[in-house]
């Protein structure tokens, strides 16, 4: 029996009909699918304007406990504003924020003890030692000295900073400062951790390490993490679910796998990973499959229908580069195939990228693993090649 893949998408609810392709689940963890679960954070019709500028437009979002949730988008899309409203630094122009069932919209940041934030600039207190920084939040709570010392030690152990306890922030490297900022927020054992581009200032090697560190800490502490990032690789690596934002609106909210395999729009498809899109008109539909006439040539492409489309509608067929088979021989079955000339080859050792110019001059990217046993000779510049993909691999996008 074909499994149904329900995809939560704020922009257009999809009726997943007998879609045989479910995104590969990363684990069994999926509280958003459980109707019995209530979200730990709910944004209800949140709008935020700064004068004439609308930073966040009517966003509604549910985030569940123990999720590692990412707000992803380019600069200026409103993701940081949304995060800051949850922390209490901005007041929504309209809408409510509900945390654990309570409306916290009007509470000041220091009245939200269950939410702590890690800042992009770290914001470490320069006049305090690492220990003192980490213990700051605990001192505000009025904990007694010994209890604070124990908690601070725990936090330092978790981020592996114990031997820097007596140093001041200006005596630490960027990576160490980042860990202090994390420890300071974690020390208070918040229910919800907010991270504003936490890995932005780190170099690539440190960033990869830190990503897994964050995931480990999140699992060990069982805290709900909400992270803001513009780096889609980062979001894909760490998240249980991603909310893609554009100009203040939520475009799609789904697991990384779902967003990659079933993007809700060309914006999402382009934002995450690489994608090829063929524009065309729907010429016929049957058995859950549609025929699309490509505008760039006389090919007709077949793809599975996942949402309502009409005859004659302009749609875009999205194919990921790794789903396209590239070959010097014409394919046996001419469904979903197109001929072209290799314009560029990017050899990355384990894989090769091929940029192929087809039909109307459009460039298509195909990806191929360089397996050691090739029947054909290697594909090179100026070669005439055929690109081909199965009907199930494409996604029809209506916007």
């Amino acid at each position, binding site marked *: 029996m074909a499994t149904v893949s329900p995809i939560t998408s704020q922009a257009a609810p999809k009726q997943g009909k007998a879609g045989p392709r479910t995104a590969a689940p990363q684990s069994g963890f999926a509280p958003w699918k459980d109707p019995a679960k209530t979200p730990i954070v709910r944004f209800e019709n949140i709008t935020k304007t700064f004068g004439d500028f609308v930073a966040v437009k009517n966003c509604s979002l549910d985030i569940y406990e123990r999720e590692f949730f990412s707000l992803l988008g380019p600069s200026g899309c409103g993701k940081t504003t949304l995060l800051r409203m949850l*922390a*209490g*630094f901005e007041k929504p122009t309209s809408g409510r924020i509900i945390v654990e069932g309570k409306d916290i919209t009007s509470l*000041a*940041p*220091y009245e939200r*003890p269950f*939410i*702590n*934030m890690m*800042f992009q*600039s770290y*914001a*470490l*207190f*320069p*006049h305090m030692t690492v220990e003192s920084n980490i213990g*700051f*939040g605990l001192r*505000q*709570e009025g904990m007694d000295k010994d209890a604070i010392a124990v908690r601070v030690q725990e936090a330092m152990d978790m981020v592996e900073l114990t031997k820097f306890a007596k140093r001041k922030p200006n005596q630490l490297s960027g990576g160490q400062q980042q860990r202090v900022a994390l420890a*300071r*927020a974690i020390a*208070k054992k918040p229910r919800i951790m907010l991270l504003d581009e936490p890995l932005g200032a780190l170099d690539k090697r440190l960033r990869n390490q830190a990503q897994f560190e964050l995931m480990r800490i999140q699992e060990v502490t069982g805290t709900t993490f909400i992270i803001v990032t513009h780096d889609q690789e980062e979001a894909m690596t760490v998240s249980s679910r991603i909310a893609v934002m554009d100009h203040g609106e939520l475009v799609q909210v789904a697991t990384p796998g779902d967003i990659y395999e079933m993007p809700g729009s060309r914006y999402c498809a382009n934002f995450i990973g690489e994608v090829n899109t063929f524009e065309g008109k729907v010429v016929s539909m049957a058995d859950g499959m549609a025929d699309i006439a490509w505008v760039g040539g006389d090919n007709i492409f077949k793809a599975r229908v996942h949402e309502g489309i009409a005859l004659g509608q302009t749609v875009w067929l999205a194919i990921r580069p790794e789903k396209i088979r590239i070959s010097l021989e014409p394919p046996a079955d001419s469904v979903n195939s197109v001929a072209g000339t290799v314009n560029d080859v990017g050899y990355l050792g384990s894989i090769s990228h091929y940029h192929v110019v087809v039909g109307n001059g459009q460039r298509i990217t195909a990806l191929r693993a360089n397996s050691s046993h090739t029947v054909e000779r290697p594909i090179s510049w100026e070669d005439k090649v055929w690109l081909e993909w199965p009907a199930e691999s494409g996604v029809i996008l209506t916007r």
Partner: protein
Amino acid sequence: MRRWYVIAVPYLWLIAFFLVPFFIVFRISLSDVATAMPPYVPLFDVSAGLAGISNFFSQLDFENYKFILTDELYYSAYWSSIVIAGIATFLTLLVAYPIAYGMARAPKEWQPTLMMLIILPFWTSFLIRVYAWIGILKNEGLLNLFLTSTGLISEPLSIMNTTTAVYIGIVYSYLPFMILPLYASLEKINPSLLEAANDLGCPPWKAFWQVTFPLSLPGVVAGCLLVFIPATGEFVIPDLLGGSDTLMIGKTLWSEFFNNRDWPVASAVAVVLLLVLVVPIVLFQRMQERQQEAGR
């Protein structure tokens, strides 16, 4: 080699306009008073030959210093100057801090204008501004006129010619010296530090004492020293606004010099004043050096 030429200019300037005058004053402080022109002996006479020079040096002594350091009047004057300058510095800090804080938190476009407004009074003569305070503080002055006409008081306040007037004068005159370093260090504080403090459960008024104030301390210390050091030796303000019981070393020195015509004692008073202020001056200089090294 060229480095020496460049350093030579400020060096020569310091030698000509600080060291030489200081040595002149010091030399006079070692002399004795005389009714003559100039009113001190001995005089340095090269024509008297080697014997004359050795005679000159033998007549110099520290008698004046012994006199100052054992006389009740001078002791009290030094002490009183330090106390008055100290209180005035504290009052200036109290007035300047909120102003500097407001300036640092104002929208960035306004800050240069606000800065200019603080510095603007310096474009007028210091003496005239102190005179203006006489006009405000005297019994039939503007302040009393305002208070009696609005019925807040029935008898005019006699502030003029008291130490209170001196405090007002010092605070007013030295305010920019306190505001500017305070503003400089407050302005450098990253606002996200306060956000972080807020987020960690610290309400704004607590965050001020735990985060903002400690970080503004370099500005506080710099401002206090910039006010205290000159205020101790202040003459014009206690002379014009103070009463006969406002004892400050600046006035003492002036009266020694002009009323008593005792240049040697006056010079000794000046040298001792410098020694008294040596500690805060060195402190200030050390602090500036450290700040420069820290690259702040």
